[in-house]
């Protein structure tokens, strides 16, 4: 048992932290957000230079072959900076999908482009009726000669408006909520029949509603065979949840630190308000919530490569639920303990609160995961 980073991991952390400090301050982020895509292409190129975009990909395709711990390091740092760029969609979700894609030709053509910063991805899985159930799919893909025809509507596609390619789940067989008959496709976002409507999200990112009208796909675009589609996506989502937990820990830790700093400097009644015990104890409870969340983010990271999908899922549900609960507590307390300034857009803590609130909703909120884990019998065998 060891919670230390390796030398290489430590260097990665230093390099990401240094970049964030120098080039991703709160004011710089505001400028990036004003760019056409809602994020900065220049920053994306810097990610490529730093090697962050090749992190999870195999070395044979120009990547670095790194695992969940490295993604945890990057995502926590990105959480601390509220990074706007589509790293999660492209590298975490897309990276996991592409590393396991059926076609090695597809890997050979796409991975180098992604690692070089020339291509971003979006993951279009959710539909109006599906909530957090990734098996609930109405979008269809029908066999058409040597390819497929894709039709349907996907919603809340993170960074879907700027993505070059979309990973799309579609029903190739079975009924609407069946776990069988789910195809996973890679779709060119500019292909004929793809209509995208982009919009800003509550936390300052971008998402899109996407309609597919009889879009023509080739066989090579099928990332996972229909009999494996459900498990393929489940694995993507599990890895993504671990990364989101790490990002959330970054977000929470800034809220916690900022609040403690504020308690030390804000003067009322002739003294720093941090001298009042009622506030001290609330700050302590924020710290405890953060440490519990950090523990579960580490646990989730360690469980990403667990091969038993049920055990892996249990861990992810538990972690995401803890993150959701800790995040809500820390966020609400951060605003309250700051008082009026916490309510303003000009001060940073509100932006973290908003991001945390949205992170809880990605791939299932705390209540959803508590219920899911309860359905699996919990963590401890009777």
């Amino acid at each position, binding site marked *: *048992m060891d*919670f230390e980073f390796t030398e290489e991991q430590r260097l990665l952390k230093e390099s990401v932290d240094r970049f964030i400090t120098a080039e991703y301050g709160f004011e710089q982020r505001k400028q990036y957000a004003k760019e056409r895509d809602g994020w900065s292409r220049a920053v994306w190129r810097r990610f490529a230079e730093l090697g962050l975009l090749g992190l999870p990909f195999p070395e044979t395709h120009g990547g670095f072959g790194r695992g969940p711990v490295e993604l945890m390091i990057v995502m926590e740092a990105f959480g601390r900076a509220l990074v706007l760029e589509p790293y999660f969609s492209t590298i975490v979700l897309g990276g996991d999908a592409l590393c396991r894609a059926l076609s090695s030709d597809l890997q050979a053509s796409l991975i180098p482009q992604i690692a070089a910063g020339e291509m971003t991805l979006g993951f279009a899985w959710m539909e109006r009726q599906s909530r957090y159930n990734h098996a609930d799919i109405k979008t269809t893909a029908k066999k058409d000669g040597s390819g497929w025809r894709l039709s349907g509507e996907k919603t809340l596609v993170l960074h879907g408006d700027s993505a070059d390619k979309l990973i799309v789940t579609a029903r190739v067989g079975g009924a609407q909520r069946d776990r069988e008959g789910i195809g996973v496709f890679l779709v060119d976002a500019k292909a004929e029949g793809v209509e995208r409507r982009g919009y800003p999200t509550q936390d300052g990112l971008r998402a899109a509603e996407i309609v597919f009208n009889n879009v023509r796909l080739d066989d090579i675009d099928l990332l996972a065979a229909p009999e494996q589609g459900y498990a393929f996506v489940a694995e993507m989502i599990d890895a993504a949840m671990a990364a989101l937990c790490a990002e959330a820990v970054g977000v929470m830790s800034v809220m916690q630190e900022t609040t403690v700093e504020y308690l030390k400097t804000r003067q009322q009644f002739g003294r720093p308000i941090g001298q009042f015990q009622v506030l001290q104890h609330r700050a302590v409870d924020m710290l405890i919530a953060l440490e519990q969340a950090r523990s579960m983010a580490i646990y989730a990271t360690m469980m990403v490569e667990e091969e038993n999908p049920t055990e892996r899922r249990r861990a992810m549900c*538990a972690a995401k639920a*803890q993150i959701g609960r800790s995040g809500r507590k820390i966020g609400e307390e951060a605003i309250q303990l700051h008082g009026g300034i916490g309510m303003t857009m000009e001060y940073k803590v509100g932006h973290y609160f908003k991001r945390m609130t949205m992170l809880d909703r990605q791939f299932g909120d705390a209540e959803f995961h*508590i219920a899911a884990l309860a359905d699996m019998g919990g963590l401890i065998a009777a």
Partner: protein
Amino acid sequence: MDLSFTPEELAFREKARQFFRTEIPQAIRDKVAEGRHLSRDDIVTAHRIMNAHGWAVPHWPREWGGQDWSPVQIYFYQDEMQQACVPPPLPFNVNMVGPVIAAFGNEAQKNYFLPKIANIDLWFCQGFSEPGAGSDLASLRTSAKRVNGYYVVNGQKTWTTLAQYADWIFCLVRTDPSAKKQEGISFLLIDMKTPGITVRPIQTIDGGREINEVFFDDVKVPVENLVGEENKGWDYAKFLLSNERTGIARVGISKERIRRIKQLAAAERIGDIPLIEDRRFREKLVAVEIELKALEMTQLRIVAAERTRPKGKPDPASSILKIKGSEIQQATTELLMDVVGPYVLPYREEREDGWNEPPIGPDYAAAAAPTYFNWRKISIYGGSNEIQRNIIAKAILGL
């Protein structure tokens, strides 16, 4: 970063599991599992089996029976003991007075007391709190005046757990009333049979009689029973309270209780379904399980960090373990009451010779409410959760 344990560590865990489950009598472990009180004999029996095996005082210095275990081994030892429902070696002996004597006592004291403490040939109780000195312990007033080779002790201690079984008491007493309050305190060992000592039981809200008041009325204590230097007792008390902090999360106890809750809730029916299938009940249970898993990870992180910390310097993060650990343990006692439902109602006085009358309702019901009531204490003793928050605010947050 690696959550797996070495084969040697896992082999140790298995050895601990086997030892606790085969060597400690089932009847004693059943009592702990069911939330019943242990007799003096139960506690002594379990303690002596562990000591015969060299496992009562593993964290002591090697020359006094310690094992030089790694933090991971200590963690497994505690976790397996707790999950096996084994009563721990008497904490007043092995975690409190023993390490203080080993660190600050003279050779004669070490030679006389340490083997007897390790084997519970002498049962110690703790004389710290007083009616006017709880969280503000340093304001204690029990006095010890030096007269002709004796300390003459006058005053009162309270919340003295199991004083009715004790042979000796270790006390904080005021030896210099003119000094600043932390600086006039000494650490004395007192034979409970000394004339002038009166023990009065205090019944707690669960109906139990674990705690007592201890009165000292001109009690003559030989000066050789002073531990360390006169007026340095506060330092020794701080050392004592900082000992063995990672075990206080008591994750193993909560794990075992959750298992028990699941078993009982599978048998208990609510309408047409087992209680465990009731959505609201099991979601409440799962929420506690998640917090417990997080706490276990937090504990492991602190255990791992311990390897690189100077010995005797506790991590203030261990206060997190105390707060969260007690909250979770208390939550499990609430869940146990939820399982029992209406049958928490009948009160049955517990007697050391057991119960003879037939149970009212299910046989596991009688302990549910008393356990819930009794467990309110764990967020109060050993530095209340509010004091723990003060420690974190100061030592970690710098407030």
